[in-house]
């Protein structure tokens, strides 16, 4: 069982979209994939066609001292399953967050209680920036994917992200490494190209060899509550995600860091 945490330094970079689509692409390549939404926006389920009226999720399960497995849904796509965050009140959220603060192993224990699929992948979506959610996700992750946009704002946050990774991951023996994915890349913008080459220079191998192009199909897919792969199978964004999935497979296959 490999756990991948998907994090981002700031909001709106398309982290949830990358998590879901990457999960679908990996599932189609034969992995059994479970997506866990640790983001209070609770948006992950919508990408996978969940009923918006459905309110259950991991927060309710935790607060009611019940197993997370009863909140796991099988999506209609590629055999991917997911655990939504759940529709929660402000009180519930604050309580959950304080529990997370008090119990640093909460996520770890709950994930361990789930059915373990051999060679399976768990992908955890997190809210942007540092938070209790991100802290817990980082402490359990074998691999971290940092989703960035090729703009100056994202680039400026690089040092703080590196700090987080250093603190929560670097010393663990079961941590493979962290990689950066550029999302919403547009080569016709000079700034995009420049940021990409600067990041290539700074990160070297840790920048994923494929970036995800800016593609309106990716956001349209959410409106239709489908993974992009189903909604727009020929789009460049989906093609990029395919490449990333192949790359990630190879990365995991060889056991992570060189």
């Amino acid at each position, binding site marked *: 069982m490999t756990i991948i945490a998907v994090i981002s330094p700031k909001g709106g970079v398309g982290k949830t979209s990358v998590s879901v689509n990457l999960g679908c692409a990996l599932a189609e390549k034969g992995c059994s994939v479970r997506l866990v939404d640790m983001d209070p926006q609770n948006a992950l389920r919508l990408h996978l066609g969940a009923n918006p009226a459905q309110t259950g999720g991991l927060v309710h399960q935790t607060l009611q001292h019940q197993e997370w497995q009863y909140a796991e849904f099988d999506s209609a796509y590629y055999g991917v399953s997911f655990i939504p965050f759940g529709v929660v009140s402000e009180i519930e959220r604050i309580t959950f967050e304080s529990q997370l603060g008090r119990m640093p192993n909460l996520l770890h224990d709950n994930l361990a209680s789930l059915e373990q699929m051999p060679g399976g992948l768990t992908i955890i979506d997190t809210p942007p920036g540092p938070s209790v959610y991100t802290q817990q996700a980082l402490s359990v992750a074998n691999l971290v994917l940092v989703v960035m946009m090729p703009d100056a704002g994202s680039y400026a946050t690089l040092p703080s992200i590196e700090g987080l990774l250093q603190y929560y991951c670097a010393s663990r023996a079961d941590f493979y490494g962290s990689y950066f994915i550029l999302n919403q890349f547009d*080569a*016709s913008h000079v700034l995009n190209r420049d940021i990409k080459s600067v990041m290539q220079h700074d990160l070297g191998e840790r920048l994923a060899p494929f970036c995800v192009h800016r*593609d309106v*199909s990716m956001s349209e897919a959410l409106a239709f509550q489908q993974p992009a792969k189903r909604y727009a*199978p*020929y789009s*460049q964004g*989906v093609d990029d995600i395919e490449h990333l999935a192949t790359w990630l497979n190879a990365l995991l296959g060889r056991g992570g860091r060189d």
Partner: protein
Amino acid sequence: MIRRNTVESAATDAHVAYDGRYVYGRLNRLAKTVLEWHGWEHRLWRMAIIVVLSLLYLFSVTLPMDLGMQSLYAALVFGVALYLRRYTGTMFTLILIVISVNQSTRYLYWRFTETLNLDSWMDGVFGVILILAELYAWFVLLLGYMQTVWPLRRKPEPMPDDTSLWPALDIFIPTYNEPLKVVRPTVLAAMALDWPKDKLNVFILDDGRRDEFKAFAESVGVRHVVRDNNFHAKAGNINAALANTQGEYVAIFDCDHIPARSFLQMTLGWFLRDPKLGMLQTPHHFLSPDPFERNLGTFRRVPNEGELFYGLIQDGNDLWNATFFCGSCAVLRRSILLEVGGVAVETVTEDAHTALKMHKLGYHTAYISIPQAAGLATESLSAHVGQRIRWARGMAQIFRVDNPFLAKGLNFMQRLCYSNAMLHFFYGVPRMVFLLSPLTYLFFEAHIISTSALAIAAYALPHLALANLTNSRMQGAHRHSFWAELYEATLAWYIFRPTMVALINPKLGKFNVTAKGGLVKEEYFDWEISQPYLIMLALNVAGLLIGIVRLFWWNTFELDTVILNLLWTVYNMVILGATIAVATETRQLRVNHRVAYRQPVTLKLKGGKSYACRTTDYSEGGLGVEMPAENLVALKNELDVSLFMGEREYVFPGHVAFMRGNEVGIEFAELNLQQQMDLVQCTLARADAWLDWSENRSIDRPLAGLKEILFHSMSGFRHLLYFMRAGLHGLSAYDEDAAAMEKSIGAGKVAQSSELAGWRGRLNRATKNMVLLGRSLLLKPVAPRVVDKKF
């Protein structure tokens, strides 16, 4: 115990078969044991064995045999050769050469000693002409074997890591009358070569002194160089520029040869390693079909005429330090070039002559057989013929003014390599002799080979079969069997005169600029250029008809001779038919050639949707794209096209200009200069652009080659009949027009005759047209249409 047991299995991997240094199998081990025998170390043993073997060889060549014995011997030798060719390896190529030379020499020896018929003057004259042609063919065969037995296959030498050690370079792009459209991509690609920018200077050497070129050069920041005369054409142009520039090396590109970005890094390494290296040549690669390839529809499937030279002969020359300079896609060391007096101006093939001068002074030349530039092939057969006439004339000139047999400073093998290159161009007369020889019997009953047809078969068949077998093994990847016959038959008539003239007076030479990049609006038959083939074909047809009469009535007492000559005539007709297919110019409507180009591409529509697709082909104005599904885009959709080079992505604006199913044609919008440079970089100047060129090619087998030629020959005859009919109709239409015109001005009588109905009218027209056709065949001047640059 890996054994490559058939030529086919070895040849599927052309490189292995061709590279041929991989040796497997029992026989190869045996050969190795023999080679490693310690006796070779002793001089006495070695000499003794060599003498004994030489005597045996001589004996096997000269031993007279009766028909039965000769047939048995030939069958035996041929069987052994067929068995041996199953093995790969240079060792077995050498053995096959030894066998082939043995049979060919035996044949020729027999011809000289037993079959010369000097009884009557007619038999004697024709017989001597034929045997001299055969002697020439034998000599060129031998030289060819020696020249290509061991291609060097030189690898690029890596450059030092420290770029401060890289030398300063000048790029020369000579041009005379070519349009800017042709020259622009070359200049842009030259500017973008991977080399320190402060050490790279690009010069357009404009002998046309055009303002348009000057403005272009200024806008992109390269130097526009002119001189105040046009003496010595391209050679003079380069020499004039040499005086005004100072880079340590000079790279020369014809104005339509677009260099790949890696060109300099691939080539310069050897100069740094070998201080005596004066010139390094790379292949001339053509991205558009030459007239043979276009008119026969064999583009990229059958090796073209030039591939034997660039794929094999130059690599063979390289082993003997005898690589020729070919005028373009080459790097020269300025100091050595200046020492030989710049580019040679005495002959019209200034390039080969320059290399010869370097060799005479003991300098080296080198060849790297990796296409690192590509250009346009000649556009029509007449232009192609014009270019080859220049080469033939130039080589004959060098043969006269700087004969490689006599020139000082060359070693033996260099002499052989140069001689073969020059003698090769004298094939005009011998080729025509072979095409017409059987007619001397069929027309005049001349017995030019005085022996029975069976004896001829017993001696000639093993000679021809083994020569074909061996050549197919050595050259198959670069020239399919029997194609040399077609290439030579097409040019024979045209090069025989210039070579003869140049032999007599080398000063009578003109430099033809080869026209490239034009249009052929509709399919037509080039009656003018094909006259020699048509005449030779007509003679052969007549010979065939007479032969049939001889077969059944006149010469029934020597049926074998009649049949032999008839078969020979039919073979000649096959070759001539194929030359006629070449002369049928097929349509070429696009100005910009499409180049197959398989790369990922992103199409981004104005609405923000983008699609991952693959390109199918590229041309200067646009891109062919294969969409993953139909109807993803619509006609006239504006979009951004992303092409990738390594990690980098380049975006070009364009619109959908064409759609059929999921094939989409995209036309680029007006590109700015940076975008034009990027586009050339992403497409034609890619380092790997031409590496997989011959990937989908069928493997040569001698009989398959014959079948190919036969197929093209049939289509040649079909075309000929069609165009003869169309010619008749076309002329009739003209007659009627003329008649109508005369009618309108009042001369009614003529009109009536052309309106004659029924058989009389048809007969009338047909006779008139036959006369016109005959006149067009016999009376028109036969000079090919080429652009002449006189000075």
